[in-house]
């Protein structure tokens, strides 16, 4: 009896010993900063790390901060514009690239390329494409007699331009996940459907999509989270001094401005806390809703 207990203890010891690095890393680099920033959101910040307890002053300030509300609106517009289209396009690309044709790996690599390219390099190239006076896009439009808009500096177009780049750069990553999801679907379903006379459209909507729904769920959750946290796209494509920054800045960009330009880390922490609650809420809702549409085999 005591022998078994000893062995069990030893097992536990080694198990915990093995996961210690990960647990310690998470505690030190994720959980502790989380607690810290929760605390900081109730402080008023001074120079060089000095701060005073401010109670709910940051949250009261938030209520009257119209720029923050606009940033939140921008973030939602960006998310609604980029996530559904991005996922739909990724599924289509993944399905098309799940066939057996020559040079398939080349196509897959091409679609994945944006994922491994430096974001700053991507932004540079897109800024040049979008340049209203010397850019390729407007040049092409002008050859068919269309005067192209100021893609990145017209408030009516800047957000759409950002969404396009965001979708373009996310397709590759999502596609790889969808591909692995597609390859997990048993061939038998399709064979059975074919015998029953279902064409490929019916097969796609009745077999592929339902069987892919766990993958779609995963990609939707991660895409929404990263889309709510969009920052570097705005930082590199629009810039803090652009005349359209108010119409395009996200909550995280506004957080950056408060934390690192205005050096008001208390207010910045409060903003990040609110964003955290929003993302948490959206994610919980998604998990609740998944019962209605996600099919697990």
């Amino acid at each position, binding site marked *: 009896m005591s022998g078994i207990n000893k062995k069990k203890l030893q097992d536990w010891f080694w198990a915990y010993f093995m996961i210690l690095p990960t647990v310690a890393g998470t505690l030190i680099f994720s959980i502790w900063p989380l607690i810290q920033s929760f605390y900081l959101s109730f402080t008023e910040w001074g*120079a060089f790390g000095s701060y005073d307890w401010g109670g709910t002053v940051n949250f009261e300030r938030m209520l009257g901060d119209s720029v923050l509300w606009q940033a939140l609106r921008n973030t939602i517009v960006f998310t609604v514009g980029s996530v559904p289209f991005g996922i739909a396009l990724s599924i289509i690309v993944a399905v098309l690239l799940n066939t057996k044709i020559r040079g398939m790996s080349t196509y897959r690599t091409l679609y994945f390329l944006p994922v491994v390219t430096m974001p700053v390099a991507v932004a540079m190239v897109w800024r040049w494409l979008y*340049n*209203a006076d010397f850019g390729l896009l407007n040049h092409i439009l002008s050859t068919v007699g269309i005067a192209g808009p100021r893609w*990145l500096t*017209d408030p009516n177009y800047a957000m759409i331009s950002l969404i396009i780049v965001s979708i373009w750069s996310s397709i590759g990553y999502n596609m790889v996940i969808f591909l692995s999801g597609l390859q997990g679907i048993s061939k038998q379903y399709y064979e059975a459907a074919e015998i029953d006379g279902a064409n490929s459209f019916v097969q796609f909507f009745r077999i592929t999509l339902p069987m892919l729904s766990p993958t779609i769920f995963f990609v939707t959750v991660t895409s929404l989270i990263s889309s709510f946290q969009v920052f570097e796209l705005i930082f590199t494509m629009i810039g803090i*001094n652009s*005349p359209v920054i108010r119409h395009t800045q996200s909550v995280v960009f506004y957080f950056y401005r408060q934390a*690192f*330009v205005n*050096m008001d880390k208390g207010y910045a922490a409060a903003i990040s806390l609110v964003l955290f609650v929003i993302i948490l809420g959206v994610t919980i809702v998604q998990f609740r809703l998944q019962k209605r549409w996600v099919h697990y085999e």
Partner: protein
Amino acid sequence: MKRFSIVLVLALVAALGLSALAQAQVTLSYRFWDLNQAPAMEAIARAFEAKNPGIKIEIEVIPWSQYWTNLETAATGRNLPDVFWLNATNFELYASNNMLVPLDDWLAKSDLISLDDYPPALAAIYNYRGKQYAIPKDMDTIGLWYNKELFDAAGIPYPNADWTWDDFREAAIALTDEENQVWGFAAELSLQSGFGNTIYQAGGYVVNEDRTKAGLAEPEAIEGLKFWTDLINVDKASPSMAQMTDTEPISLFESGRAAMYFTGSWNAVRFNANEYTKDRVDVTVLPKGKQRAVIIHGLGNVIAANTKHREEAWKFVEFLGSREAMEIQAATGTVIPSYMALQDTWVKSIPQFNLQIFLDQIEWAVPYPVSVRARHWQQLLTDCLTPAWAGEISIEEAAQEAQRQVQEVLDSERR
């Protein structure tokens, strides 16, 4: 085992000996951001070490993009490098929080340097509440750069030192050729090389001398701001704000699409290296408003309050400001040395540009406007003025809003 102990003892002895040596030697860290200037700084450090055998200088280059965050973290942990560069925008934040050592007592006794060696408006930037905290390292002023080829093509005489705002405006309009997308001027939204200058030229101010009051909504300041927005939105003699966001104003100037551009002496090297601008552009003093004015700025070498070697750090800062160090710096031609007696060397470094005007303007130079939270309000100021530059709101409206927001920051500094 025995052999092992002998090795251990030997190692211990060696370590002790080394640390004894190290104690006789003081090592100072010297931090800055500009990699281009690293060779000159390295040479200066070596020259200093040769003269001061007991002191070693360790250079740390941190890129601009991380410099300020990095410095702030270091200051928070009272772990600043012994000697480092500061600029005007950040200086008062560090000085007001007792992060720096005042240099006045040493300066009074120094045989090597005196504040009179540097332009007064430049030295004044690093004076906080009557105490001098930095020795100016270099300096810059703003000039009116122009494209000779475009002036020739339009048959307009080149700008000269007698030009007034009206002359400037007239020429800018005449040089604009809407059809060919050529503009007389690129009216960049910039405090240092743009509207800051014209506000002082109109007799206004950005912030007053004791940093208690912003002057942005005063009639003079509005006149200085209107100079810019009129050229863009009334005269159409400058590309729109949207165009200047898509393509940087300096690029418009460098590609012959803007005939005139205000920018600092620091771009002389850039224009000289550019095949297009090298022989096509020149520079003159800024046009005169109600009065003459130009913004002067320069970096300073400071000593951290947390240094363990104050005397040694002063020796190094003193040397950095001395003729010998400035000669090494001037030879590279990248920046104007703050040491006035040596500024001619820089003027001669690019003979085809009339660089002398940058020095001539020292006479009426005003310090770059700052306060303790300058970095904060300078961004707010840009944010507030942008819609007026874009023609969405009037400049009066923008100036009122800027005044309100900047004043709020200034008020918060005194709490």
